[in-house]
């Protein structure tokens, strides 16, 4: 199992939080390492989250809730 975390360097400012706008694969979908799997919005900037491994995506954080850098948002099994 590989954890999918919001990269610590995804945005510079430590005081800002983000939010997942959309998962680009549904829960349970097969994903390949390097696939774009989610859009994350920080203020008005859209950032991209990529799959760190190949496997089945298990989403643990739904869109539109506050997330921090480093937070676990999904697993790939």
């Amino acid at each position, binding site marked *: 199992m590989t954890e999918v975390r919001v990269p610590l360097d995804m945005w510079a400012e430590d005081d800002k*939080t*983000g939010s997942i706008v959309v998962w680009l694969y549904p829960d349970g979908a097969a994903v390949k390492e390097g696939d774009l799997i989610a859009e994350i919005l920080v*203020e*008005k*900037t859209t950032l991209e989250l990529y799959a760190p491994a190949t496997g089945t995506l298990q989403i643990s954080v739904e869109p*539109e809730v506050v*997330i921090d850098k480093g937070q676990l948002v999904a697993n790939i099994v």
Partner: protein
Amino acid sequence: MPLTAEMRREMYRQMVRSRAFDDAVIGLYWVGKTPIFAFANGPLPGELHCSNGAEPVGAGVCAALDADDMITADHRPHHVAIARGVDIVKMTAELLGKKTGLSQGKGGHMHIYDTAVNFASSGIIAEGMGPAAGMALARRLQKRPGVAVTFLGEGAANQGAFHEVLNLVGVMKLPFVAVVQDNEWGVSTSKKESTAIARNSDRAGAYGLAGEYVDSNDPDDIYLAAERAMTRARTSGGGTILELRTARLAGHFMGDQQAYIPEQMKQSDPIPPYRAKLIRDGVLTEGTAAEIDAAATAEIAAAVQQAMDAPYPDASEAFDHVFAMGDA
């Protein structure tokens, strides 16, 4: 009119009022827009183009205007509106879409109208040009005094309307001043990238107009140049392109991260140096400056509170004002 200490204090006061207004509405703008940013959310929805950095333009030019003069502004109107004396309480309410707003919630921040001070604005780039020339023409036909002053950005100087109208002004010798606010950026496009020559004021010769460029973003210099342009318009009816280097410190609109601006092009805030200059010149003391600052903050806080407390228009009011009342 020569620049007096009183006028300089007043210009400082208008700059500070404008900044207090923008800072307050920026704060309000982010309410309701996290964690997911959406233009439509919060008490202050829509796009918001703030004037931080351009305050010397509004203060300096408006100090040279008379009550009869007329203004058309653009999508970034706050600093001009405030210096012109647009009702700030009603303007704040308009930004919040309230019934008590200047336009009863119909216009929003890009569409500010206050006939009491001959002020209008449009959100379409360079669309202030033609109407301003027409206002100048009307005053001539009516044999009434009044110079038309249009405020636009340096990016707008590449629109057809800019050139067509300048030619008309030149041909008709209309009392007209085009204030080109050169903040170096049209959204993400630099002036260098978009404009074939360095200064739009140099285009004046092509239209039989006077051209002047002020590169200090200091209201003293801006006032003196505006006064020359207004005198020209009042005495000979000749038009001027008055181009003013200024700043756009809060981005094109709220949420613009401005990642496209290189470090060496970062702009500086014009208010602290003017404050220091007036203190140095003995026009203000630290104490009187602080009083002006505090009064502006308090005035805006009260305006925001009033606007927050005001009711929204009823949905049915959307159908009012499509046409003026009365038939032929």
